[in-house]
């Protein structure tokens, strides 16, 4: 596209009072050869916008540089159609509202921002959406045919899409097949599982195809373009799908590990799973003598909330016990059920069901078991009763039920191992270390992805491939692959249904956006995508290793193979690439490099240091905006450059900036570590890792390491912004001016 640039400067909101516009107009013309540069006292007014529109119509302007408020506001006002490039220069929050008006330094700051904006606009191209050569599929693969899987498939189908279910057993239903009844809102009663009806609906739906006794042997491709090999009854079928829902459910915690609670030792100690099966198969009987039990004890948290077993709460066991106590009462109204618990966790409206169970005469004891034994064919236990504050003894128990917990089907029985990197301290004798849960090589096989970063979804602790994000619970680290149901976290059936329904939504949304060449969350709708110049690639593998979403495969020569539909457009690959061969149409190493290059670096004698601040545009940038809105003041020597994510930070920018005489470089990014906040998972962490390697560069340039600093800034930390900048300015002052000035 032949660019015709126009610069429009708003003098409203105090901008006109803070800076002189004429010198800016001059530099736009002189330094960038842009002949159209206009000012308006109220640019976002209809009249202001009209001014721009006229230039578009009459002068053919197609690249518009708006020097006004923050790009976070008035996006709709300054939108002139998809074929126009709009670049925003933030003269309001970052200049007029945070700097001394009519000050020389303020003026220089504004001028630099306009330069950077013009430079950026010059280097930017309109992105063209990615379109694969192959045909896109909008079908959804659902792995797992239990309640979650069937629900997801049905919801997909009801929305007009096709679904394919792959179920490893010979019939649909999953755990529902073992269940007698369901406990669900409004918690007034027990309800039928609805299994038959559900299976019928699935089987009758022409939009759903079911493979039973089947497993996914291989999944290759990318969203919109997945190719799945399904092994079923000795043959292999191939399906093309657009997105995947993994709903492979859970397995009960292995009760053999609960010998201390009498399991395996006493016949009449059983698990809640075993009781459920008995209940649905004709009745609850004592395993020892086949009698119907009169006195039944349920032991809650049989393994759960226990660092030796499952440190987490399994969330459904309280409800399950209440349900099973109801079975026992139904079978024998004279029977008595005791429930030994730590905390009753009947959240929400389920509290009603707890009350109902109490009213049925079931007895709830808060405490911990200290002993279990057998006497005259009956079981007894001793426990510390916290309500009574005394030791208690329960005798004549016919049955003891261990309320065991859920383990995600993704959790391997034993932690897999991998070759330790050189120098790893925790390597074993064979030079192996345990695979961390957030690796694609950790989980048990279910999808068999042909991904360079591993065949399965990375997981959180305890093997749940759940989202780490509170606001984005469907986020996974493999684009277009969503999880649903108890594989994500232990949940009751009502929640499983909701969850699977939501996963269906995400899956169809993904195939729709993918087809249009758009990114999915969090840069939803972004049409840009990374392009690589393979000629200059050195096969260093950094991009393929560091992509947080496993989007890049490798060929046998270790060349990166980009899968644009897997890509989230964070630019981590671009930041990782030492050869600078990865770029987006509107975001590139060169583009940012040129922005750095146009910053005016005064001579040392002028005593006007220059600090470059790379800012995460998702969190730190809004925080700076807020600081401006609060009219906080900070040094006029800083220059902010927003980045898509600090993961896209390329070290060459730091080297370039320092060699140009810029005195210090500050990185403002998200929190990392266990509770990371980076929307691209690893971005800010990778930036710090890269930063740790900058010392080499600094040494080469004979510069002090203090000149580069990373600071964690959350979006609400706007009140810290002035302090962070001041602290850094003080450091730079101590270190002294960059000796490269004027080279």
């Amino acid at each position, binding site marked *: 596209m032949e660019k015709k640039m126009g610069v429009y400067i708003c003098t409203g909101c105090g901008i006109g009072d803070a800076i002189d516009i004429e010198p800016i107009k001059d530099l736009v013309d002189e330094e960038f050869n842009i002949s159209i540069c206009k000012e308006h006292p109220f640019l976002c007014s209809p009249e202001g916008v009209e001014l721009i529109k006229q230039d578009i119509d009459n002068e053919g302007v197609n690249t518009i540089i708006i020097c006004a408020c923050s790009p976070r506001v008035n996006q709709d006002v300054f939108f002139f159609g998809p074929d126009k490039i709009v670049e925003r220069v933030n003269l309001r929050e970052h200049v007029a509202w945070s700097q001394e008006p009519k000050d020389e330094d303020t003026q220089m700051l504004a001028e630099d921002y306009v330069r950077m904006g013009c430079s950026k606009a010059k280097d930017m191209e309109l992105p063209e959406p990615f379109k694969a050569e192959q045909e896109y599929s909008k079908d959804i693969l659902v792995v797992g045919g239990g309640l979650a899987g069937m629900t997801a498939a049905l919801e997909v189908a009801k929305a007009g899409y096709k679904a394919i279910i792959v179920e490893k057993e010979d019939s649909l239903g999953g755990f529902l097949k073992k269940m007698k009844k369901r406990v669900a809102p409004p918690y007034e009663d027990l309800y039928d599982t609805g299994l038959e009806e559900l299976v019928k609906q699935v089987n009758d739906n022409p939009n759903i195809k079911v493979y039973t006794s089947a497993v996914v042997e291989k999944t290759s491709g990318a969203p919109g373009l997945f190719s799945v090999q399904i092994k079923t009854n000795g043959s292999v079928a191939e399906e093309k799908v657009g997105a995947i829902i993994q709903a492979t459910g859970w397995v009960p915690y292995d009760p053999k590990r609960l010998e201390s609670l009498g399991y395996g030792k006493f016949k009449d100690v059983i698990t809640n799973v075993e009781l459920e099966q008995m209940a649905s198969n004709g009745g609850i009987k004592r395993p020892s003598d086949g009698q119907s039990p009169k006195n039944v004890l349920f032991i809650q948290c049989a393994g759960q909330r226990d660092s030796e077993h499952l440190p987490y709460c399994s969330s459904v066991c309280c409800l399950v016990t209440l349900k099973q106590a109801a079975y026992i009462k139904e079978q024998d109204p004279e029977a008595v059920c005791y429930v030994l618990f730590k905390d009753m966790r009947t959240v929400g409206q389920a509290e009603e069901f707890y009350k109902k169970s109490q009213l*049925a005469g079931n007895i709830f004891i*808060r405490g911990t078991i200290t002993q279990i034994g057998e006497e005259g064919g009956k079981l007894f236990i001793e426990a510390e009763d916290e309500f009574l504050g005394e030791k*208690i003894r329960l*005798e004549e128990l016919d049955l003891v039920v261990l309320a065991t917990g859920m383990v995600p089907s993704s959790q391997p029985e034993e932690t897999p191992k991998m070759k330790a990197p050189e120098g790893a301290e925790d390597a074993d004798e064979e030079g192996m270390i345990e695979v961390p849960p957030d690796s694609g090589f950790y989980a048990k096989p279910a999808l068999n992805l042909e991904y360079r970063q591993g065949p399965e979804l990375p997981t959180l602790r305890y093997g749940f491939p759940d989202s780490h994000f509170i606001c984005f619970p469907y986020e996974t680290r493999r684009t277009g692959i969503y999880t649903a149901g108890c594989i994500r976290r232990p949940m009751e059936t009502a929640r499983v249904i909701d969850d699977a329904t939501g996963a269906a939504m995400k899956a169809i949304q993904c195939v729709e956006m993918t087809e249009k060449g758009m990114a999915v969350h969090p840069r939803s709708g972004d049409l840009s995508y990374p392009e690589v110049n393979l000629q200059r690639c050195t096969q260093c593998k950094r991009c393929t290793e560091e992509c947080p979403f496993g989007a890049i495969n490798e060929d046998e020569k270790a060349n990166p193979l980009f899968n644009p539909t897997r890509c989230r457009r964070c630019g981590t690959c671009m930041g990782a690439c030492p050869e600078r061969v990865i770029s987006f149409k509107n975001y590139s190493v060169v583009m940012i490099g040129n922005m750095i290059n146009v910053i005016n670096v005064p001579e040392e004698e002028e005593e006007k240091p220059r600090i470059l601040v790379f800012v995460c545009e998702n969190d730190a940038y809004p925080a700076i905006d807020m600081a401006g809105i609060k009219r906080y003041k900070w040094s006029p020597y800083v220059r902010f450059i927003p980045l898509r994510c600090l993961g896209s930070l390329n070290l060459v920018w730091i080297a370039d900036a320092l060699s140009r005489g810029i005195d210090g470089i500050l990185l403002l990014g998200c929190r990392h570590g266990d509770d990371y906040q980076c929307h691209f998972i690893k971005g800010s962490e990778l930036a710090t890792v890269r930063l740790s390697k900058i010392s080499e560069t600094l040494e080469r340039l004979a510069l002090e390491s203090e000149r580069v600093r990373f600071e964690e800034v959350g979006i609400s930390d706007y009140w810290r912004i002035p302090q962070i900048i001041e602290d850094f300015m003080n450091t730079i002052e101590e270190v002294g001016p960059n000796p490269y000035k004027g080279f």
Partner: protein
Amino acid sequence: MISWNNNALRDVLKEVDYAEEIYKCIQCGMCAGSCPLRHHMDYPPRKIFALLRTGNIDLVLNSKSIFLCTSCYSCIVRCPRGIHVMDIMHGLAHYAIKMGKISRKNTATFGQEFWKQIYKRGRVDEKDLSRRYFFSDGIVQGIKNALSMADMGIIMLLHGRMKLLPEKPIKGIKQLRIMLDKAEQESRR
């Protein structure tokens, strides 16, 4: 060590009004926290309920707590599970008296005498009630008791706050007794 006795509760459930509600208790402690005489109780009400659930009825019936209810209704008003805590305490006291387990003799006697007044006359004669209450342990103790309270009596008398004439039974006393007898029979069903 407290051992469970599964069947012992049956009688309590029959003999104590609202006793079935003890199962609803979540042991939150609101009842005791709201009770004016909580500091004098051996077991707080919720623990009485927990003990009842174990079937250790004697522990409960021997507890003084069940006689220390001032009928202030705080526990009833505040119980998050809507349990008639006060009524259960009353019922337990009634049952304890019936079973001859009287941990607070004064209160038990006073209450019984009070009821006798009603049964006898349909109304309560305060003077007669206190006389009977003071003399419930025989004449010697009665005189002692009465003397210890004589100052009060005299004050009341002097201020015209003692009815001198004895209360006569109400007109419908006979029918009232029939009704009360029948109510008692019905209660045991």
